[in-house]
């Protein structure tokens, strides 16, 4: 078990002691050398599998209604892959030129702007950009992780001594959550809060502080639930979808039917019957139900396993990284993607209340796909930077020699 998160990264590293986590920028050594392509084979393979089968399922779940979803998804995927390829090579270098707080300012700008748009289905979630709708909450996921990781990397070990050190990231993320929550959207803040707490915990926050933080969040949650009646209704409907099938639990009821009728091996790719205009949002939030119906238990367990693999790979890369900013970013982004996936899955099968959270790589949606691929690009970039920095000695040696010249 112990090896689970370290095995793959072991090759590159000499297992530094705990303080090594806070060693100053490991990438610096590599930065001045000639550019060599960065690519983590395994992450790339996972991403590639996700993209390919994500497209298949997007098509399967939406094409009966309209094939335009699929073509648009291909475009989004292409843009996303291009962005990911670019970021996977240059992100760290770009990042050095500005403070991530600026990313937050831009994000807030978007989040405020979205509140003034015409609501789609009663929520302000998208900014209409002509060819596609921008969803600022998706951007917020990335920028928040980057900002928090950067901040935590800077404060390093002082975090557990003074709770005031926690104030800055909490305020920034609090503002972000409120802005997203105003949309209204409760799922994304919840997800991000989980990631945030995990990052604070990993960065060495005092457990007591975290505990009080958790206590403070309870009234906020309760208020949110009670204030927005429909949330309470949706929350209740997930407990017994059949009883409320005619009203709030309709989606969930059909989702259950889809999942349950899949059986061991499913009805076969493309054979889903509940997508025939029955299950609303079959191609976005509830794509997992359609997957369950089509490929059955065996198939979706493979998908769950892939996400687990991504999680394991990401965490082990984060553990291997010696730069705390890189480490925390890899950790945070991996968790964002995987927790989001599990959140979505849990929602489709009734473990969690339905909250409008997309399944990364699979659900249709430009912002979601592009930002997920951007996350993958950043992870690959940072992991690769770390790998190059920790490369065998003779390169270091060459490095020094070059520097001396």
């Amino acid at each position, binding site marked *: 078990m112990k090896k689970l998160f370290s095995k793959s990264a072991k090759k590159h590293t000499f297992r530094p002691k705990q303080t090594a986590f806070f060693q100053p920028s490991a990438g610096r050594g590599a930065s001045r050398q000639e550019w060599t392509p960065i690519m983590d084979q395994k992450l790339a393979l996972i991403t590639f599998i996700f993209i390919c089968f994500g497209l298949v399922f997007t098509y399967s779940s939406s094409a009966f209604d309209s094939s335009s979803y699929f073509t648009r998804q291909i475009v989004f995927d292409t843009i996303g892959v291009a962005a990911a390829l670019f970021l996977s090579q240059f992100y760290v270098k770009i990042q050095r030129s500005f403070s991530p707080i600026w990313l937050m300012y831009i994000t807030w700008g978007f989040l405020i702007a979205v509140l003034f748009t015409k609501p789609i289905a009663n929520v302000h979630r998208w900014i209409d950009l002509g060819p596609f709708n921008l969803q600022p909450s998706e951007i917020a996921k990335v920028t928040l992780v980057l900002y928090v990781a950067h901040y935590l990397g800077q404060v390093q070990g002082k975090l557990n001594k003074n709770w005031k050190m926690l104030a800055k990231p909490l305020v920034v993320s609090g503002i972000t959550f409120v802005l997203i929550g105003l949309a209204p959207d409760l799922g994304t803040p919840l997800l991000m809060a989980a990631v945030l707490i995990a990052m604070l915990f*990993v960065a060495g926050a005092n457990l007591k502080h975290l505990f009080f933080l958790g206590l403070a969040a309870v009234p906020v949650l309760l208020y949110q639930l009670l204030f927005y009646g429909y949330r309470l209704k949706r929350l209740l409907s997930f407990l017994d979808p059949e009883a409320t099938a005619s009203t709030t639990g309709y989606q969930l009821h059909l989702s259950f039917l889809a999942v349950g009728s899949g*059986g061991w091996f499913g009805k076969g790719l493309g054979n889903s019957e*509940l997508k025939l205009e029955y299950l609303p949002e079959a191609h976005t939030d509830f794509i997992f139900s359609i997957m369950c119906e089509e490929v059955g*238990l065996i198939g979706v367990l493979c998908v769950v396993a892939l996400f687990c693999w991504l999680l394991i790979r990401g965490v082990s890369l984060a553990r291997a990284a010696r730069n705390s900013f890189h480490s925390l970013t890899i950790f945070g982004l991996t*968790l964002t993607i995987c927790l989001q996936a599990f959140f979505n899955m*849990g929602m489709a099968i009734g473990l969690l209340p339905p909250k409008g959270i997309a399944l990364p790589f699979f659900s249709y949606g430009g912002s979601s796909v592009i930002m997920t691929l951007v996350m993958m690009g950043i992870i690959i970039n940072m992991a690769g930077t770390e790998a190059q920095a920790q490369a065998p000695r003779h390169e270091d040696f060459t490095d020094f020699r070059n520097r001396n010249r």
Partner: protein
Amino acid sequence: MLPKKNPFAFNAKARMKLCGFLCLIPPLAIGIRLFYMQTFLYDELSNKADRAIYNFLKEDRLRGQILDVNGNYLAESVRTHSCGINKRYVKDKEATISFLAENLPMPKREIEKLWKEKGNFFFVAKKIKPDVYMKIRSVLRKPLGQGLDLTPEYERIHPYGTSALDILGEANSKNKGLSGLELMYNDELSQDISKRRAKRARRGEVIYDRSLKEEKSVGNIYLTIDALAQHYAEAALDKAVQDYEPERGIIVVQEPSTGRILAAASSPREDGQALAFQFAYEPGSTFKTISIASALDSGAVSTEDMIDMDGRKWEVAPRVVLQDKQHKEEELSIADIMALSSNIGAGKIALELGSKNLFYYMKAFGFGTKTDINFNGESKGSVAPYSKWTKVDLASKGYGYGVLLTPIQLVSAYSAIANGGYLMQPHLVDRIEYANGKVDKKAKPQKIRRVLKESTTEQMKEILEYVVVEGSGKRAQIPGYGVAGKTGTAEKVSKEGGYAKRLHVVSFCGFTPIKDPRFTILIILDNPKKYTFGGTAAAPIFKQVAEGLLTMYGVAPDQPEKLVQADAKKK
């Protein structure tokens, strides 16, 4: 850097590992939950899904048609829709109502009234025609049409109006027969197809699947009724109803050689109320034909016999006296008894025949039993067992009292005389043609039994012809055609017991032409308000209907020599 007192020694990598493990709990839970749902709940959920996705196409099937013998539509189903409003989903009440008012044949005010009065869901209009349906359907997905609902329905259309409605009966908007033939042949007209199912998407769209081939097994019913004959009968009956205002009127036309019923008109005409099968009455004088034919056939009397009239006051039994007021003869031949419709004569002949024999003949003619048509609510009439008959009973049965017949029984009996002695199975349904090509022929000529000797029928034809030529049925004469028939004017049992003059049944039953008879026609006017006789009211109707039929079927005159005589007379 390490806080020494903190029991949780800070170690980033360990914490990451912990977080990683914690994050593996949700997928584990998901896996377990999926396993539970997709294996243990599989049967339950997939059944429910099936029920949601598939539905039975039972509704989407047109009811079979009912046609006359020549293939004219008598009843046909048409798809229509009824338009309902679900108030809760209507976006713009004003716009929706004015849209409906534009397209439906009803004013806006009326729709608004319905809106106020009815609950959340109500039907605005039923039996929407296809054009309007298309218009409403085109807006269903638009905001304007939200809350509107179109439910498929069926309208049973009778192109000829109420013609033959009494036989056909009615079917409701859900394709179910309610009365008459629609009820009798409901299974054939609307086959049970509930086992077929179809995949459907939302909004009522059906997804066609090769495995769900349209398998039509609905039958079209062809009747022996001829729409034109039916029209003649109904027109004649309507006129008679106007003239004499009877409580009920019946005309039945049968083809004696095959037993097929060409027309059966009833008045009043209500769906499923075919009086030709359902009305049981005391036939009166028209029954003399039966009793005298029986007597002749058994040899109890012969055509040469003269019957003593007892001074036209015959005491059948103590204090039971029969009177003949219509003639002053002391004795009558059998032909004259028929022509003058002498009750004394018929009674005496019945006594001569004896109760056992008369009963046997009545049963042989099919009285007291239902015909195999088995129409809904068909009456079987009533013939009491002969052992209970008194002498008076027997005598009165001779002239048609104390026995209840249905028109169809009497017509069949006359047809037996017309066709040479065979009781034919009466037919109302000619054939049923199923959509898959199968044809179920129902109206094969079927001799039930021989009732009379052929010689007897020849004698009866002569006697009945004599009745029309010289006797009470003169008004039924048709130039050039031999007509055989018998009038009847029967008093009905009044509430006080005994026979009331005011309540009576006027009838005529006969067939034409005499050589090779084609039509047996029975006319009954029950309880006309204006007092009248069979010879004056019913016989002309016979002539009217028979002329129409003879023309329509192009029957050549069987007695052209009379035609020449009639022409000569005119000149």
